[in-house]
């Protein structure tokens, strides 16, 4: 689409990702988390809202293994999940 030679029509401008590129997981260190996430998606008819815990765990795995820059989870949009977790932890 962006290669169509249409003068005057706006062409798609790809934007670089906000936090750059994920380093490749050559050794499959987080593969189990990914499998859990994919299974959750398939079970829930591919609804993202129901599998956010699994996606959070996958990103945590990446951060632990230096495959992703460390970021507080609120900045990644998991603020509501983090509150629930800390509440559960404080109960114990």
């Amino acid at each position, binding site marked *: 689409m962006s290669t169509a030679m249409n003068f005057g029509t706006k062409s798609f*401008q790809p*934007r670089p990702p906000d936090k750059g590129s994920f380093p490749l997981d050559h050794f499959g260190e987080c593969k189990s988390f990914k499998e859990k996430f994919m299974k959750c998606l398939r079970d829930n008819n591919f609804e993202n809202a129901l599998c956010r815990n699994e996606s959070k765990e996958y990103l945590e795995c990446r951060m632990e293994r230096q495959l992703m820059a460390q970021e507080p989870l609120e900045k990644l949009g998991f603020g509501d999940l983090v509150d629930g977790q800390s509440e559960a932890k404080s109960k114990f």
Partner: protein
Amino acid sequence: MGRLWCPEWRCLAFGGWRWSHPGSLTRVAERTEPFLRPGWRGTRVAERGLRRLGTWKRPSLARGPSGETQWRPKSTNPFTRAQEEDWRRRNKTVLTYVAAAAVGMLGASYAAVPLYRLYCQTTGLGGSAVAGHGSDQIENMVPVKDRIIKVTFNADVHASLQWNFRPQQTEIYVVPGETALAFYKAKNPTDKPIIGISTYNVVPFEAGQYFNKIQCFCFEEQRLNPQEEVDMPVFFYIDPEFAEDPRMVNVDLITLSYTFFEAKEGHKLPVPGYN
């Protein structure tokens, strides 16, 4: 004409030319007005002077050694001669102003490109009209739960790249304001390492400005060793303002399409955006 360009241009630049000022045009008009009144039967010299002002006919006098036309005032009367010299000076002034304006416009049009780029870099707009997506926005954004959007995934590979590249889910249902994770899988079935680099595309085009990728695997070289298979995640969200855009009312399907190309060793590709 040589004299017209160099010294007078410098004089203008440094503001040293005292007797050229914007009123000169009006002065010329004032001077010519009496001659334009009907019934004026002045000297033929003044009329010929006027005619020369109005036409661009080159004087028939031969060019002097300096390159400039040998100009001799046509009258012997000292007053009209001074007048003609004055007109000639005024002519030159006006011509210099006009030429300066033309050159200024040309220079401004050339300077506009880097200046605009500089402006975009400082204000961070970078060509997109949507305000910047800081991580604070991600922290504070509220999911719009009643607007469900289906995101389908497409994977393409350039003919010269021998990877097997495909998405791991065909679609995913998200709402604006919620971060989502999706996976692609790539395998290098050959016996030598191959470096690929990818770009993406979002359809429909207008929805693309609301599609924000927090992190993905595009625009950077990704190296796959022989017989290696990796999972490539894309972490994205759709801007909550998507729900408020009247043009997006009918948009329920967004397609994210990635295409991988082979990267040559040492070849540096331009990354989009102003870095």
